[in-house]
């Protein structure tokens, strides 16, 4: 009756301490510095790409994809190293994988009804829109006239 039946509290209190990260505690500071520099460089890349007028005019999708890739890379760096997930056990996948799947799914499911809503507009509906309908970009090239600039010039 003197000894505990189950929980050895003292033992568990030790386990309640900070996560042991054998890999990162030594030389951990070096890793953090490296990650910091990498984050700064990635931010700079993202900023330069986003401000590139060449890309914006010619291939905006490439620009967006590049910026999203940079963002994902930065997020991974923060999550793996600063939030220590690299050294955590498999429970990290339980949390992150379903959440990521749901986020992606959410966006994809909104695309047909909300993202592509203007593709089903009738001509009447286009009359009430803020800007007139822009014709397909494919028809614009050097041989054809550019559509008039949206500066409100009358005919």
């Amino acid at each position, binding site marked *: 009756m003197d*000894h*505990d*039946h*189950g*929980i*050895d509290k003292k*033992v*568990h209190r030790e*386990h*309640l*301490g*900070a*996560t042991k990260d054998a890999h990162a*505690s030594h030389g*951990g500071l070096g890793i*953090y510095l490296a*990650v*910091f520099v990498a*984050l*700064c460089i990635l*931010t700079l890349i*993202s*900023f330069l790409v*986003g*401000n590139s*007028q060449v890309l914006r005019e010619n291939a905006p999708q490439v620009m*967006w994809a590049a*910026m999203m890739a940079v*963002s994902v890379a*930065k997020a991974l760096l*923060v999550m793996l190293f*600063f*939030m220590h997930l690299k050294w*955590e*056990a*498999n*429970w990290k996948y339980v*949390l992150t994988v379903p*959440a990521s799947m*749901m*986020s992606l799914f*959410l*966006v994809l499911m909104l*695309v047909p009804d*909300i*993202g*592509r*809503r*203007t593709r089903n507009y009738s001509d009447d509906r286009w009359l009430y829109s*803020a*800007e007139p*309908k*822009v014709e397909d970009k494919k028809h614009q090239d050097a041989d054809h006239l550019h559509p008039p*600039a*949206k*500066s*409100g*010039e*009358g*005919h």
Partner: protein
Amino acid sequence: MSEHAHAHDDHGHGHIKLQYQRSLPIPNGKLCLWLFLSTEIMFFAGLIGAYIVLRFGAPEGTWPLPHDVHLIEWVGAMNTFVLICSSVTIVLSYEAAKFNQSSLSRFWLALTLVLGTVFIGVKGFEYKSKFAHGIYPSTPHSLIYEKADIYYVQAVRQKLAAHKAGLDAKVAAEEKLTEDEEDRLKVVNQLTDYTKWTESIAALDNDPLKRRAAMERLAMSVYPLFRGHDSHLPPDQKHELFTKMMKDELSAVEREGFTVNESLKKIAGDRANVAKEAENLTEQIKQLNEQKSKLPAAPAAGATGASEGNGTTFVALQDQPNPAAQIDMQIADATAKLGEKTKELGKFDEQILPLDNRLKAITARTQVQPILEHAHGGLNEHYDWLKLPMKIPSGNMWASTYFLMTGFHAIHVAVGLLAFVLILPKTLDATKAHIIENVGLYWHFVDLVWIFLFPLLYLF
């Protein structure tokens, strides 16, 4: 993977042996925080996902460019850098605490707090700049209109009327207007004329393209937006484009003014002739009346009969044509002619009135041109007191999503700062390191959200 507690020997007492098995190899606090972070992921994924869909679902070319809504990309980039630094410092604080370096840990924690405050400060500065330009999350403060239609023009006129009412009230109160206010009154009056000019085209012109063009010109005067290739011209070239557009309208207007003036002159000339004739007739009638009054008294018998026969050519055989009757006939004749002339004059006046109004409007339009041409960056930029409604397509959608997302993020940052403040007084040794770990996890999540928000809002 679960870790076992030390197994207890069976002492043969027949007790039920219970072992405490941990489900995850992490402390409860950390587990709870990660669960909370997963809800936060869902929260922000919902908002960011919705923003992505709305922004890319907006009709081609309608989503405001960062410049249009006073988003300055490098300020956002600087904020990103600040937050990255604060992520590093909180990690360093945790590491120091793990190795029992509590004062160093506190130093890094304090630095994190400072950096977080800088982030909030910069955000506040950005918000203030948006509010100063009339960009609010929603009406009534928001000055953003989606399109330049007749309601927009009406809103502009009402805002100008409100300005004018304020200034007029001051005049009515017998107070002297300052020079500044005098100038403002002038500007307000001329802009009101220009708005009415736009409204008359928008309401009356038969050509729908002309109607739309007129309203778009007003919107461009208030807050110019440039799309496509024009959007990254330097400001003075953009202003050149705008000025050229207004000058084109002005030359067409002046040509019309010239024509109207010519017509007016011609009609006025004709009217003057007719008026002269009318004057002559009036003079004639006056003279005839005088003549009549000078006549001797008419003989009693036949005169009455003949003089009552107005307009008849019947002449009593035994009577001479009665001079009074003759005069009366002439008077009647002249009066009839005068009536006709007066009618003609009336017709001329009918023609003149609309032309006159048109000329007044054209003159007003001509007079407002210098104001429009000198307002670099638009009227709202040049006269920061004007705060006229402005047209930014998808502007309200942009403002709602921007303020919602950055607002929620800022609230999360503020909560993090509060947590730092609460921990700072503690002795941050190895026994407390787990607190810093958890707060650090939250802070890193806040940084993560910003990593996605920055390109989506500022760069896309």
